[in-house]
């Protein structure tokens, strides 16, 4: 990669700037999701017992870390080009490195959280299985998926300032429709509704795939694997295409 060093520098800068001057500093990258998880556990694990899942906290956590990575990546990327407006107006460098560095920062956090969650889940549930070897493939597809969509929302938001607010509004219902604290099978008998929950929401197969490997100790179905790979590739192709088509005027609009 020609811009590896630039990319590395931007990631460092992103990591440093966000919580600079606060007492816990970088720890917030881990603390925030943990607090979120605690709140959701309280809500869906203790107050409303929505799903008859064994080891519900672990079931919930595995889905949540995937969702947090996805949603935080998109939200962070959406405003990233405007945040770095000074740089874009005055210097020439590949613009995609800015949203991509945001996604990478969240990917690092995600890796830490997932490692913790997976280690505990596998230890508690005894789900160590050769299927674990498929996890890197699913995670690579998830990264490509998040990166592709992040490129799209980042460049769109630079031109149309409605994108970030719409996105952050959409993420809440999207969260509730994602199989994070339930499985589609456990909440509906209708085939159509189940199909929609499982396949029309592109995040659902990623959650299902990671959860199948880590929580159930079984390889995801071939359909899920094919879906996540296709979604990852498609998102990346789309993201590159849209970003390249629209990046020309960035120095003028940000």
């Amino acid at each position, binding site marked *: 990669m020609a811009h*590896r*060093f*630039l990319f*590395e*520098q*931007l990631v*460092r*800068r992103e990591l*440093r*700037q966000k919580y*600079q*001057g606060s007492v816990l500093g970088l720890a917030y990258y881990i603390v925030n999701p943990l607090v979120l998880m605690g709140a959701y556990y309280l809500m869906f694990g203790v107050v409303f017992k929505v799903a008859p899942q064994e080891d519900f906290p672990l079931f919930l956590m595995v889905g949540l870390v995937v969702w947090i990575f996805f949603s935080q990546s998109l939200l962070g990327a959406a405003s990233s080009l405007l945040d*770095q407006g*000074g*740089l*874009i*107006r*005055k*210097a*020439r*460098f590949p613009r995609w490195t800015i949203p991509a560095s945001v996604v990478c920062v969240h990917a690092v956090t995600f890796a830490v959280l997932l490692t913790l969650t997976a280690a505990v889940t596998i230890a508690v549930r005894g789900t160590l299985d050769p299927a674990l070897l498929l996890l890197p493939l699913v995670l690579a597809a998830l990264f490509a998926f998040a990166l592709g969509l992040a490129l799209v929302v980042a460049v769109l938001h*630079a*031109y*149309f*300032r*409605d*994108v970030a607010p*719409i996105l952050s509004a959409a993420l809440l219902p999207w969260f509730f429709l994602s199989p994070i604290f339930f499985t589609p099978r456990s909440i509906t008998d209708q085939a159509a509704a189940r199909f929609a929950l499982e396949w029309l929401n592109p995040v659902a197969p990623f959650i299902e795939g990671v959860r199948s490997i880590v929580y159930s100790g079984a390889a995801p179905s071939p359909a899920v694997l094919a879906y996540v790979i296709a979604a990852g590739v498609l998102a990346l192709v789309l993201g590159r295409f849209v970003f390249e088509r629209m990046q*020309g*005027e960035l*120095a*003028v*609009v940000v």
Partner: protein
Amino acid sequence: MKLAPGEIALQEASRAFSVRADRGRTLKGLLLGRGGSAADGPAPVQALRNVTLRVSPGETVGIVGRNGAGKSSTLRVLAGIIPLNSGFAGCGGQVVSLLELGAGFGRDFTGRENILLNGALHGLDKPAIEARMDAILEFSELGRFIDVPVRTYSSGMFVRLGFAIAAHLEADVLLIDEVLAVGDEAFQRKCEAQIARQIDGGATLVLVSHDAALIERTCARVVVLDDGRVACDAPAAEALGFYHRLMGTPEGVSA
């Protein structure tokens, strides 16, 4: 168009900017079918109108003109930061643009870390920057402040670091926008000497400034822009004379 290293070409270059108050187009505007069309608000400002300019490798060109004449737009177009609406713009070889000293500095990064970041933005890799590190440190005269976050720097220190980095990049084309007017006199002289060294090394210089004396010292050729057009393109003395008449300032007095 194939350009030799150090060669610069603008071919019937035109660029307009929309000047609506809300720069970001909204989805509402798009849905109502007037996204970006600037149907409301003032008409777009034409920053460059059919500008044609050829600069040979090693030339030193100053660009002068009143505010809004298109000087900075010319540089940003040449630097490849903004695209043209029509025409062609290009520079041959390695281009180093200094449109703002310290653009992109991370305020919480130390001077040394910012050298790495800034070098990376200019397309250098780590070994290339580290090879220049000592020279940059010495040039910047920052001493022990180099390991302190730049948010604690005075504005003079800030620009010294910014210039020190740019001064140590190998350039075929140097694009400089009014950034030398900062720093104390001694440092300005040092910057000028450094630019002169790069020109002696064969670099092409395009310098935008309101400082006629600086332009006269540094540039052999001067282009006067007026309202997005080339009003005069001549040897420095002649073009600066034209510029002073245009601006209504007596000759020999720097504007």
